[in-house]
């Protein structure tokens, strides 16, 4: 997949450091699942962590720490009827990873594998929404929007960080055209007005730090109702 819009470098660093809450970790990893270039870039950012670990001052571990660990490994090995080493117990589910369907893998545990199976709730003319519940501990929100072809989303700025990942269809705003796999990783001061391309609805995943701020009075009144 040839993509045009990728993650901001600062986002890659925060993701590598573990500084994104689950809503943003899910949208970033979903983009990574669709974008080999950013996958490689995320590993480059992790090298910063590797170097910091190398440079970290050492704190003595308990004297018996290694013996304790090997004993735990031996114990696990014995617990396996066939005596396989613990190393081989944790098999990766390769079949599951060879994903079917058009939902990126990090989203499948919330949505299943098919975009067509997602249930929508109409929130405004031409706009439907599907909320993803991550639990109340996660400060940001994560949801999908299904926006009808040709539909314009009211011009809005952002109260905080916002990312939009296109799953199908496309929209255009002043930053260009966003098609499947593209991610809009927007700064909080940015304002934009996406318009969905003709031909198909645009289905996108959105993570927001705080509710999006609409510009006009009508939209501001509508906001609690639309909830975007």
């Amino acid at each position: 997949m040839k993509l045009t819009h990728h993650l901001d470098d600062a986002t890659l660093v925060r993701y590598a450091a573990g500084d994104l809450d689950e809503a943003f970790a899910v949208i970033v990893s979903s983009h990574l699942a669709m974008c080999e270039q950013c996958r490689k870039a995320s590993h480059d950012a992790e090298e910063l962590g590797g170097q910091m670990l190398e440079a970290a001052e050492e704190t003595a571990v308990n004297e018996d720490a290694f013996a304790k660990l090997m004993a735990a490994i031996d114990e696990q090995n014995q617990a396996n009827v066939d005596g396989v080493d613990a190393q081989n117990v944790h098999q990766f589910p390769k079949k599951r990873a060879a994903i079917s369907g058009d939902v990126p893998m990090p989203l499948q545990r919330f949505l299943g594998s098919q975009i067509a199976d997602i249930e929508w709730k109409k929130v405004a003319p031409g706009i439907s929404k599907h909320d993803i519940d991550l639990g109340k501990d996660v400060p940001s929100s994560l949801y999908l929007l299904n926006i009808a072809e040709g539909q314009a989303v009211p011009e809005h700025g952002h109260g905080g960080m916002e990312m939009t990942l296109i799953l199908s269809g496309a929209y255009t705003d002043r930053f260009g055209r966003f098609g499947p796999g593209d991610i809009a990783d927007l700064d909080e001061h940015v304002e934009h007005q996406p318009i969905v391309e003709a031909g198909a609805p645009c289905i996108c995943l959105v993570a927001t730090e705080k509710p999006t701020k609409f510009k006009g009075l009508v939209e501001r009144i509508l906001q609690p109702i639309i909830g975007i």
Partner: protein
Amino acid sequence: MRTALKLVNNNEPNPAIELAKHHRQLIARVGSSQDRAAFQALFEHFAPRIKAMMLKGGMGVMQAEDLMQDVMMTVWRKSSQFSPDRGTVSAWIFTIARNARIDLMRKASSRPYDDVYEMEIAADDKSSDDEVLQSQREECISAALQDLPKDQREVIQLAFVADLSQSEIAKKLSLPIGTVKSRMRLAYGKLKGKLEAVR
């Protein structure tokens, strides 16, 4: 994998690069034959660093020791899945420690990271064994980080080791968030530029 055990002649040996290469050879031995001596060497190097990282992130001594045990257990179990194509042993062990810390300390889950990781494992039929390329990358990483200006290094250290969020870093250093972000971009950009050249 055998070729990875051969040492490449280097005209000007750099200790950091030699160490990275050595770790790569050790993990290959653990992964292919459950070599406990090789694992012990890795343990002696990384365990005290992982514990220090957990302490810096605000954990108590007991908790840091326990989490270090968990991390090294995962290193043992997953060693056969380590691929030098994706990065250095240090970076890989860092990600295991990071994920363990996310699950324990943050109100989050490391599942999204694991999903991408599993996808990559499934996609790599067979990782290539390009010794020259791996050495070049190790060289780039070490060089890029050695040249890192102090103010950028500080931000990176606080984010990756001390586990501070972007806004906590800004507060601690009395800087606008935009400055923290741009230092992150600069530190990473330098590394990225060098790594892309050898990819």
